[in-house]
């Protein structure tokens, strides 16, 4: 509640009689300043961040030589302007042109994701995860040996690996480390909401957004916790009531990894940062827009044994009980989480060619 203490009403004039509070209402809230509710940055002892390795990771992230066809880079499915997601539900642009089983996730604030990455948390950490898309026949379809050979013949890479890791022999391990470091560097804390919390001059919430935040704290914060907007845990949010084990069990969610039936249909809570630009949504991209997402929670939740208890109501019904006004305000609040600097920062974009 510390944010509430510092609220200053900049302009207090009236929409009190109106049933709907329009976002254009001339009421803006700001704070006197305070820290974001974000845990300390975890230290990765086996791969500490350093600028030379982050820069190398950036080169690799945007390099199409990591794919078999020479046409795909990591950025092909993780585009900066889309919060490092790809804008389609299930991509089929990989080497095999097969439709993937899951939606490309955003890459935002993964430095705090210390209990596994992927929708089911199946990869221990980024050092383990980053090689998977490179060699997956349905994604970049590469042979890592050939990739390393190609990079070794490029003097810029030889120098960059030497700078980052003190070795001009390019090895798989250092490639993984560099990519992991670049992804960990993708930190987003510059949205208007963040500026509002920190009490910066251009940080504010409109009255509607402020109401939306109250709705959010009541209805969503349980899973989209802290100012990371994720508890890094696994939940069944009622998308399905049955979970098939087709396609290597990917619909089982966390249960595919844990082997625990109580984890069926549970997927990792995604961050909501930059959520307005990273449609579509859910692990399979089935919901095309934020209004659809909110409507899912209001009226589309499907019951099952593993449904998150936060989505159960005292009267036995399931889903979030939100009025139309609250739903609209919630949407408005979510849109304040867009971090334009993050989405356009030159530090996260391809390096300028010389």
């Amino acid at each position, binding site marked *: 509640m510390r944010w509430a203490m510092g609220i200053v009403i900049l302009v207090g004039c009236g929409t009190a009689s109106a049933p709907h509070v329009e976002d254009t209402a001339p009421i803006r809230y700001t704070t006197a300043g305070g820290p974001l509710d974000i845990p300390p940055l975890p230290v990765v002892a*086996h*791969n500490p961040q350093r600028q030379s390795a982050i820069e190398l990771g950036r080169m690799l992230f945007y390099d199409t030589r990591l794919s078999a066809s020479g046409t795909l880079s990591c950025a092909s499915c993780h585009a900066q302007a889309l919060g490092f997601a790809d804008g389609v539900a299930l991509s089929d642009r990989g080497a095999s042109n097969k439709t993937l089983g899951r939606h490309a996730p955003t890459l935002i604030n993964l430095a705090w994701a*210390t*209990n*596994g990455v*992927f929708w089911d*948390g*199946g*990869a*221990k*950490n980024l*050092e*383990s*995860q*980053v*090689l*998977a898309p490179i*060699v997956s*026949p349905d994604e970049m379809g590469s*042979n*890592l*040996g050939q*990739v*390393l050979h190609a990079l070794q013949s490029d003097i810029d890479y030889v120098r960059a690996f030497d700078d980052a890791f003190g070795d001009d022999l390019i090895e*798989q*391990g*250092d*490639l*993984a*480390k560099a990519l*992991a470091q670049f992804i960990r560097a993708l930190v987003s804390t510059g949205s208007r909401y963040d500026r509002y919390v920190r009490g910066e001059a251009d940080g504010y919430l409109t009255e509607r957004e402020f109401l939306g935040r109250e709705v959010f704290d009541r209805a969503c914060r349980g899973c989209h916790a802290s100012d990371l907007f994720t508890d890094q845990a696994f939940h069944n949010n009622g998308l399905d009531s049955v979970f098939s*084990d*087709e*396609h*290597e*069990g990917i619909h*089982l969610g966390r249960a*595919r*990894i*844990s*082997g*625990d*039936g109580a984890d069926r249909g549970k997927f990792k809570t995604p961050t909501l940062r930059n959520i307005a630009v990273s449609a579509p949504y859910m692990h399979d991209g089935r919901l095309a827009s934020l209004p659809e997402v909110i409507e899912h929670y209001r009226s589309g939740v499907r019951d099952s044994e593993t449904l998150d208890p936060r989505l159960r109501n005292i009267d036995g019904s399931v889903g979030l009980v939100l009025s139309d006004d609250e739903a609209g305000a919630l949407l408005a609040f979510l849109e304040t989480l867009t971090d334009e600097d993050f989405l356009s920062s030159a530090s996260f974009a391809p390096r300028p060619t010389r």
Partner: protein
Amino acid sequence: MTRTLLLVGLCACAPSAPVSGDVRVVLPFSARIGAAPFVCGQSYDSVGADAARIWPTDLRFYVHDVQLKNDQGEYVNVALDVVEPYQQATVAMLDFEDASANCETGTPSTRDRITGVVASGHYRGLRFRIGVPEALNHVNGDEVDDPLNNSGVGAGMLWIWLTGYKFFKLDFATSDKKEPDFSVHIGSMACALEADVAVCRNANRPLIELDDFLLETSTVVLDVAAIVSELPTNDPSQKPGCHSVNEAPACWATMPQFGLDFGFDSQGVPAAPGKTPQVVFSVEAQ
């Protein structure tokens, strides 16, 4: 253990020279589909419970804890040679695909033997575990060497590092398009991350015991047809096969062939107990 450690040190660059009292051993393997040798690009009839036609596309697996049985019935460790890229001190890969024809996921090199050193003695009987030892199974992707290295012969053996590696990777096609659409992938499951260490409840490392194995005269024979003999391979409902998922019927029909229990209920009771003995591997005179 002293001797084992010494051997590892000696054979860091080449097959080891046995120290006094030790002998070098070669343990040959062959892979078949029924009576015919495993060959990439070839078709095989009458495979599976529905006697379908298949086209194999990959067959690789890891082994560890290799031991020979002496006259006293005791198992004696075989210290693995370090042979790049197929053997480290504690894990070896057998590789029957050569990346030709439709074996597109593999690498050109193959490996049909395990080599190592064992204390001098008279042996009859061999046992080994399929899989990557626990100590290596969850190592980060930036810290692995051959044969686990995904840039080498381990290409495609990477599963997910929380579950570890594919210990055993069999893929085949069930249509003349020859695109792999059926798999038997064995690996550890039911894993959790505890303080950055992966812990798996279902290890899924089959122990293969072959009592008739004789040094220098026997070959270990792997029969792909035996793996799927109780599975209708041409039944769309069984695709994409078994990926060690506890609930998958295709796993209930294939994992027990290796002697593994499968289909555990909430009390841990297997609905599909492992066959005793396993039926996938046998011994044949060279």
